């Protein structure tokens, strides 16, 4: 069974790879390469997989899930400039893919203990673009 909880945070970022020229960055990332940065209201859906406990009838304690998401993701990410204030985005381009990876990395040890297991992280950068990450390959973060 899957349980999904949704969180939101607002943050700014620049998509720019320091190994590429300004022109290459503009060609690759378009307006997202604007060096002054721009922001999004990110929406994140975290899905946890498990079998309901015979006694409690729950896969995991949702109060605890809420606290973990708030502490591990919303607090460090919300109202921040990701490239300047949230590691590893001082050296990793904060694309939606890399953000999904970093969120997985921050959550996995907190959610995959006991009966439940982190199943997937979905990050909406806008309503028209989202990324799903299932932890299949180690990310560059």
């Amino acid at each position, binding site marked *: 069974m899957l349980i999904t909880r949704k969180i939101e945070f607002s943050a700014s970022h620049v998509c720019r790879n320091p190994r590429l020229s300004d022109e290459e960055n503009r060609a690759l990332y378009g307006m997202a390469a604007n060096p002054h940065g721009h922001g999004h209201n990110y929406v994140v859906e975290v899905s946890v997989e498990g079998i309901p406990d015979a006694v409690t009838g729950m896969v995991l304690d949702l109060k605890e899930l809420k606290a973990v998401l708030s502490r591990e993701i919303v607090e460090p990410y919300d109202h921040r400039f990701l490239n300047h204030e949230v590691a590893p985005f001082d050296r990793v381009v904060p694309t939606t*893919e890399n953000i999904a990876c970093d969120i997985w990395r921050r959550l996995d040890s907190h959610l995959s203990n006991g009966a439940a297991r982190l199943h997937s992280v979905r990050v909406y950068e806008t309503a028209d673009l989202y990324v799903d990450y299932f932890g299949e390959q180690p990310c560059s973060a």
Partner: protein
Amino acid sequence: MFRVTRRYEFAASHRLDAAALSEEENRRLYGKCNNPYGHGHNYAIEVSVRGPLDDSSGRAVDTARLDDLVAREVLRPFHQRNLNTEIAAFAARVPTSENLAAEIGRRLKAAWNSEFPGRWPELERIRIAETARNIFEIGADEIE
């Protein structure tokens, strides 16, 4: 591996009427969708693409290229059109959202290599919301 999903919209009209059935059978089967004058929807489509992270860009797909491909193959030909009379695939096939999803998938698959000549990313699925309440999904491996 990542799944990247992009959402697009187009508005089009259609009429559901199966050539093999009688007028009465079509009315019963398709109800209001059989109205001879047709009717329209604001279709929302989601195109999901699968691939590993490109180390240099930090992305699994170049979304600008995906946008170009979808605009060229789907949005420009379908937007503000009558699907039955203006899209060849629906001359002999009922433009249900099931058939529309398959047609969109076929168009994207056929043109895929022009934008994405490498092994990755690959098309994973097409999802169509005909209205907010009716949603249809087809996997790339189900598309002929």
